[in-house]
């Protein structure tokens, strides 16, 4: 057995109101992929943040190369050869892609930043992860998935001995995930030790060697990666889950949402489809296919050039979110931090944001009602929190995502558009959300769901629309939709035009 590169013993971390880590043991060998598994809020991100110098443990010891080591700052971690891909991106939106890739360590010549070297090095890194982004483009012009790839490339650039990846695949589609795994295998061969966090259980067997399961801040088991999924789920949640995609079809009614020839030049073109009452429509496609852009335009968040959106047969004005909401649309955006949450506000406020207007009497907000409604939803989604007054900023990633979904559940939208709704959500909570989708459609509402998690799209949709390069490439009924048929449509057009 090879010498352990990293050993963690009895790590504890307390935050006001919660014990995030309660005595965790963990170790890591060169050339292995060690998967960290646990429910939302189990303490995975907290653990890795103590390895990367972002947090300091209250108790416990970290050994690097067998020696007890204090990792106080991000610099310390870098010096020890530990690189981290954080769950919440640590990128600077205003800077160029290249600068983000070399944040804090730009190439220098004669003491000055060497931009030429920076761009060429950035090009190399981007090519390595297979992202066709201009190194000189501002980062904020990229979508969430390409930002994730930039974050990955940034960490690769550090040539670390230990690479920590916190849910890198949450927003990636199958092909990018494949690419990432390719890179991971390559790194393994070079002896790099990798910590990998994911909520996609099928990925564990594909890429992992060992699995450490965290529950309520404590490490409860260490098992090999080929442990059956059911067993992993039981270790993690404490019970087994019968059915991962419990879709119950309901009878379909009249079209609630109709989209006709929607076009925004250079982004998407001539998109037409409809969503009927009682129906779940999945919207699949590769990253950059234009799915998010289409639903944002439908919801009025962005303008479009031509075409029409009808809800319940009545056309919507362009670019007016409030009109779309009045008509009965709701949108759970893909970027929870940027578009979904007021991070500095508490859970109650965030959950009440959408419904607050209707619950206002004579200009006054019904605070008691808001608290009651918020408590109900938080309970329903199993949000792990110290109370409704907890600042959303301090919630774990998956729990933040539940808040974004929760505020729209309260709104009772006729057509709920979900953009990557289960990003970062654990298996148990996912099932809860699917149940909620079922009850929505059962009561005659409709759901339009974008997801890069293909099994989820296939498992939950009654109909799958596939987008490629800004166009609808095709439509598949639940019966015909398979991993292969969807991918064929998503990639097909790409190859035609290429």
């Amino acid at each position, binding site marked *: 057995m090879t010498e352990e590169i990293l050993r963690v013993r009895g790590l504890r971390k307390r935050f006001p109101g919660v014990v995030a880590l309660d005595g965790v043991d963990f170790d890591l060998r060169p050339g292995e992929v060690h998967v960290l598994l646990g429910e939302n809020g189990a303490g995975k991100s907290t653990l890795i943040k103590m390895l990367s110098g972002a947090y300091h443990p209250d108790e416990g010891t970290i050994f690097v190369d067998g020696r007890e080591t204090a990792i106080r700052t991000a610099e310390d971690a870098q010096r020890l050869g530990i690189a981290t891909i954080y769950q919440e991106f640590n990128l600077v939106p205003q800077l160029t892609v290249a600068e983000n890739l070399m944040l804090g360590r730009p190439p220098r010549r004669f003491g000055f930043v060497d931009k030429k070297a920076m761009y060429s090095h950035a090009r190399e890194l981007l090519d390595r992860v297979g992202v066709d982004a201009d190194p000189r483009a501002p980062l904020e012009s990229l979508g969430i998935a390409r930002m994730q790839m930039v974050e990955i490339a940034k960490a690769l650039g550090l040539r670390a001995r230990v690479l920590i990846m916190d849910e890198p695949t949450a927003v990636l589609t199958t092909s990018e995930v494949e690419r990432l795994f390719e890179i991971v295998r390559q790194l393994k061969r070079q002896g790099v030790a990798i910590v990998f966090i994911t909520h996609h259980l099928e990925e564990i067997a594909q890429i992992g060697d060992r699995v450490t399961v965290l529950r309520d801040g404590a490490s409860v088991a260490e098992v090999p990666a080929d442990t059956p999924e059911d067993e992993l789920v039981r270790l993690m949640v404490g019970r087994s889950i019968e059915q991962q995609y419990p879709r119950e079809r309901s009878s379909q009614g009249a079209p609630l949402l109709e989209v006709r020839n929607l076009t925004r030049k250079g982004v998407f073109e001539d998109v037409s489809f409809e969503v009927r009452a009682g129906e779940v429509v999945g919207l699949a496609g590769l990253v950059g296919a234009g799915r998010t852009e289409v639903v944002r335009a439908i919801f009025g968040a962005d303008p479009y050039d031509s075409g029409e959106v009808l809800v319940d047969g009545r056309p919507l004005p362009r670019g007016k979110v*409030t009109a779309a*909401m009045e008509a009965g649309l709701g949108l759970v*955006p893909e970027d929870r931090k*940027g*578009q979904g949450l007021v*991070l*500095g506000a508490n859970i109650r406020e965030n959950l009440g*944001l*959408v419904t*607050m207007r209707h619950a206002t009497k004579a200009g006054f907000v019904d605070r008691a009602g808001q608290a009651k409604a918020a408590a109900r939803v938080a309970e329903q989604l199993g949000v792990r929190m110290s109370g409704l007054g907890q600042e959303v900023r301090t919630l774990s990633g998956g729990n933040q995502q539940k808040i974004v979904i929760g505020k729209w559940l309260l709104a009772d939208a006729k057509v709920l558009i979900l953009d990557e709704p289960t990003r970062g959500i654990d298996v148990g909570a996912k099932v809860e959300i699917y149940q909620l989708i079922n009850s929505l459609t059962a009561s005659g509402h409709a759901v339009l769901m974008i997801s890069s998690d293909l099994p989820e799209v296939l498992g939950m949709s009654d109909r799958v629309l596939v987008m490629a390069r800004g166009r609808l490439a095709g439509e598949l009924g639940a019966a015909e939709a398979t991993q292969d048929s969807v991918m064929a449509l998503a990639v097909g057009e790409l190859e035609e035009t290429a």
Partner: protein
Amino acid sequence: MTTGTLRLRKGSAVLSENGSLLGLVVLVVALTLLSGDFLTVTNLLNVGVQAAVTAILAFGQTFVIITSGIDLSVGAVAALSAVVLAWTATSHGMPWPLATGFALIVGIACGLVNGALITYGKLPPFIATLAMQGVARGLGLVISQGSPIALPDSVSHLGDTIGSYLPVPVIVMIVMGVITAVALNRTYSGRAMYAIGGNEEAARLSGIKVTRQKLVTYALAGGFAAVAGIVLASRLASAQPQAAAGYELDAIAAVVIGGASLSGGKGKALGTFVGALILAVLRNGLNLLSVSAFWQQVVIGVVIALAVLLDTLRRRQAR
């Protein structure tokens, strides 16, 4: 748990939630020890009166800062409103309630222009309100021809003291403070302001009409500025075109000392009130202690820094 400790807990919660209340308490204790003239009823009333104008401006500014904006025009708008009041009431013989209403409308209109420049014109708040500062100040000078206009007695009673212990400016300040607290905590617009300041995009995608709410925000700041201007003028029994110059900085300082952040999403009426009181107590105290004029600025600077420092230190310890 006894009611005693409960009260104590509540007390320390109030302390911890309201910016530099601790700083204010320390300041008051220190001044009481240093000067026998400080802790007298008349002097405390004086402090109240002296805080009033800044506090009212700062209440208005609180709305703006919560939405992550800034309003540099409030001092100038206050002066303009006061000049308009005096001018309409004297030169044009308007009855004073009408003239007061007119002055308020002028303040609100200035605020709406700020809001429109920021929302429709997409100007940064700093620039839009800096421009308004110039325009309002200039218009005040033009209207008054640069000279102070005496206020009719009917209006200047606003600066008086009812009985011997109820100065009208203090009453107005408290009323405006309560309005601010209720508006921020309980009304739709108030909650929307926090959301906008916290994350404007998330607020927009949650169906909050950001443009409209920002217009409301700046209109409120303008309206509050007009009230402050009227109180100021009635204290002086004359409307001065150059009055309240630089008060915007005091107002912003009061809001920030009170725990708000210029990056938005945070801020409270009570905190702002504490901030305004710290500034007023400090100036009053320095006068009572006869600190030399040149050293006063140094001392004010040091004490403001210390007051806020105390707050951040306390917070760090509380962790």
